[in-house]
C-alpha cells in the first residue's frame, strides 16, 4: 500500500508544484492519476521514488517511509517515465539483464519473465539489437518489460501508453490488471481518459498541485463520463 501524506513540493524558482497532497493506493488498486499539463502529476510520481525531494509530508510504502528507507522501498517498486531514457549503448537484453541484477532476480525467473513479456509486447526478435536502433515505442516496451520483470509490489507509470502500438496497448492493460489481481498495485498518469475510466478502480484528479478529486471510479463518475467530470472540474 502506498500512502502519500500531505506532500508538498516547491521548486527552487518558487513554483509550488504539489501542495499538501494526500492519497492512498491500496494493494490491488489500479489508480489512474489525471490532470492538465503542469498540474503536478509527474512531480508527485517522481517524489514517490525520491527522484525529487519534497519539502514536507511523507510517503510510505507498506508503512515504511521512503525518506528513511529509500532502498528498501525501491526494491518493491518499479518506474517507467513518460520519455523512455535508456542506455543506448546496450542491447535490449543487456539492459533487461542489468535491471534484473539490480532487483536481484534469479536467472531462471528472469529468463522466463523476459521471454514471456517480450513475446506479449512483440519485442522477442528485437532483444539482441542495440537500444539506439529502437523506435520510441520499442524503447517504451523495453522499459515496461524491465518494470514488470521483477514483479514489483507497486508499479508507477508516467503516461505509459504513449507510443505503443494497439496490440501492446491492450497487452499493457492486461498486464496491469494481472499485477493488481496478484496483490500488487499500479499508479499511472495518463491523458487518455477513456483508458483511465475503463481500467482503473480508483481515480485521482490533480489541479495546480492540489488533489481536487480522489476515490473510487464509480463514486467520482456517478452518471457522467470521466471526460465530463474532468472538464467540469477544470472549469470548462
Amino acid at each position, binding site marked *: 500500500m502506498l500512502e502519500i501524506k500531505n506532500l508538498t513540493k516547491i521548486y527552487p524558482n518558487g513554483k509550488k508544484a504539489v501542495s499538501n497532497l494526500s492519497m492512498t493506493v491500496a494493494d490491488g488498486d489500479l489508480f489512474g492519476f489525471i490532470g492538465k499539463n503542469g498540474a503536478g502529476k509527474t512531480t508527485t510520481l517522481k517524489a514517490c521514488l525520491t527522484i525529487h525531494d519534497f519539502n514536507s509530508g511523507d510517503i510510505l510504502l507498506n508503512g515504511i517511509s521512503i525518506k528513511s528507507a529509500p532502498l528498501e522501498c525501491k526494491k518493491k517498486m518499479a*518506474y517507467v517515465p513518460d520519455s523512455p531514457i535508456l542506455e543506448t549503448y546496450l542491447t535490449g537484453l543487456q539492459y533487461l539483464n542489468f535491471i534484473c541484477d539490480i532487483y536481484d532476480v534469479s536467472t531462471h525467473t528472469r529468463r522466463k519473465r523476459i521471454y514471456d513479456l517480450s513475446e506479449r509486447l512483440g519485442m522477442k526478435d528485437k532483444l539482441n539489437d542495440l537500444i539506439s536502433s529502437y523506435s520510441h515505442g520499442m524503447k517504451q516496451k523495453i522499459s515496461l518489460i524491465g518494470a514488470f520483470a521483477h514483479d514489483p509490489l507497486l508499479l508507477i507509470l508516467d503516461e505509459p501508453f504513449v507510443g505503443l502500438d494497439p496490440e501492446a496497448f491492450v497487452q499493457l492493460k492486461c498486464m496491469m490488471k494481472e499485477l493488481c489481481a496478484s496483490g500488487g498495485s499500479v499508479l499511472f498518469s495518463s491523458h487518455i481518459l477513456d483508458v483511465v475510466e475503463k481500467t482503473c478502480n480508483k481515480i485521482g484528479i490533480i489541479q495546480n498541485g492540489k488533489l481536487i478529486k480522489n476515490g473510487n471510479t464509480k463514486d467520482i463518475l456517478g452518471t457522467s463520463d470521466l471526460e465530463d467530470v474532468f472538464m467540469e472540474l477544470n472549469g470548462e
Partner: protein
Amino acid sequence: MKTFRLLIKREFFQIFKFNKILHGERKESKKYISVLCTVIVVFFIFAVYWFSNIYQICLEFQSQQELLNYLIKPLVILAVFIVFLSTFMKGSGVLYSDKSIDILFAYPIKVRNIVFAKLFFLYLWGLAITFALLIVPLIRYELMSYNILFAILDLVQILFLPVIPILLGIILGYVLYRQLGNFFQSGSYIRSILYLVLFIGFMAFMFFVFNKIDFDFLYRAIIEKEVDWNNNYGIFFSHGLEAIILAFAIFLVGGLLVAYISKTYKSKCFRLQVFNKRKNAKKQLLKKSTKSRTLLIREMRRYFSTPIYVLNTMLGIILLLLFTAYSFLKSDSVLNYVTIIGNIFGITNISVIFVFVVSLLIVLSNTTYASISIEGKHRDILKSLPVSLKELLLAKYQLHLLLTVPIICITSFVLGSIYQMNSIELTLCLFLPITVSAFVGILGLFLNLLLPNYEWENVTYIVKQSIPAISTVFLSILIVGSSLWCLIRFFNHSILIASYILGVLYLIFTIIVSLFLKRIEINF
C-alpha cells in the same frame, strides 16, 4: 531571402545557445555567461599572442615577393589544410546531424535554403581560420605595394579561399567519417578501438619519429616546390587574368559541389538516421550477476562505447606504455637522460625518477571527472532503482582503477626489470603511482559531484570542456607535480623513504576526500 534569414537565426541560436542567457534559469544563465567570458578572455589572450608573433615574423621580410613566397603562400596551404580537416571532422556533423531536421523538412522551406543556412556558418568558420592566419601578413603585403585595387583583389581571393576545402571536407567527411562510423555503430566497440589505435599510432609517431624529422629541410622543400609551381602555374595573389580564372574556377566548382550537397541532402540525412541491423547478431545469454558487478559492467560498456570518452582519458596510459616501449628499445639513451636529471637535482637513487615519471603520466588518465555528468538524463531512472549513490560511485571509481592499476603494474615490472630495480624500488614503483591514481580518481569524482552538468547535449562537452574536467586535470597535475617537486627539492638525499611517505599521504587524502563525498551527494 526571409526564410534564409530565419534559418540563419535558428542556426545561430542552436550553435551559440544565447537563449540560455536571455531566457534560461538564472543559475544556468550565470554559469553559461561565466563560461562564455572565460572562453572570450582566453581567445583574446591567444589572439594577441598569435597576431603579435606573426607581425614580428612579417617584419623579417624586406620585399613583397619574399613575404608572398615564404610566408603568405605557405600560410595559405596551412589554412586550406586546417579548414579542410576541421570540416572533415566536424563540418559533416553540423550539416547532417541536426536532430530536428525532420521538422525542417516538414516546413514549406526549400531544402537548398536549409543547406545554405548551415553552409553559411561553416563558411564563417573557414573564413575565421583563414583570416586568423593570413590577415596580418596580407596587410603587411598590401602596405608594401600601396595599390588599393590589388588589395581588393587579394581580399576577394581570401574570401573565396575556404569554399572548396569546406565543401570537399563535408563530402569526404560524410563518406569516411559518418558512413563508416555508422557502420561501426553496431555496438561492437570497434569504433572506440579504431580511434584508440589511431591515437596510439599518432602518439607513437610523435614519440619515435617526430624528433627525427628535419623541419628546416621540409620547409625548404615545400617552398621550392611551391615557388617552382608558382612560376609555372601561379595564380594565388596574382592580379591579372589568372585571378579572374581562379575566381571563376572556384565559383564553378563550388557551385557544382553545393548543388551536389543540396541534391543529396535529404537522402543522406535519412541514411544517417536509419541504423543497419547487425546481421547474425551474437546470441546473448541471460545470466545473473551481483549488483556491484552489473553496475561495473554497465560503466565499462558505456566507457568503451563512447570514443571521445576513451580518447580523452587514455592519454596517460598511452604515454606510459610508449615510454615503457621506448625504454625497452633505447634503455641506454633513457638511462643517460635520467642520470643527467638525477645529477642536476642531486638524486642518488635514479630509479625513483622512473617512479615519478610513471606517477606523473598516470595522472593524465582519469575517467571519474565526467562519470557523474555523463549520467545526464539517466539520472532519474537511476534514482528510481534500488541503487544507492555509494554503489554507483563505487562502480565509477572501480572503472578508473581497473584501467590504471593493471597498466601501472605491467609498466612498473617492465621498467623494474630493464633498470634492475631492487624489491624496495619496485614496490615503490607500484605503490606511489597506484596511490596517486587512487587520489586523482577520487578527486575527479568529488569535483564532478560538486559541479555536475546533467543538461549536456553532446558528450564531448562534459569530457573535454566542462569545469570538472578542466579543474580535475589542472589540480591533479598541480598537486602531484608540486608534491614530487618538493620531494626532489627538499628530500633528494632520502628520496626513497620520502616517496613512501608521500604514497601514504596520498592514501590518507583519498580517504579524506571520499568522506566528503557524502556531504555533496545531494547534487546527484
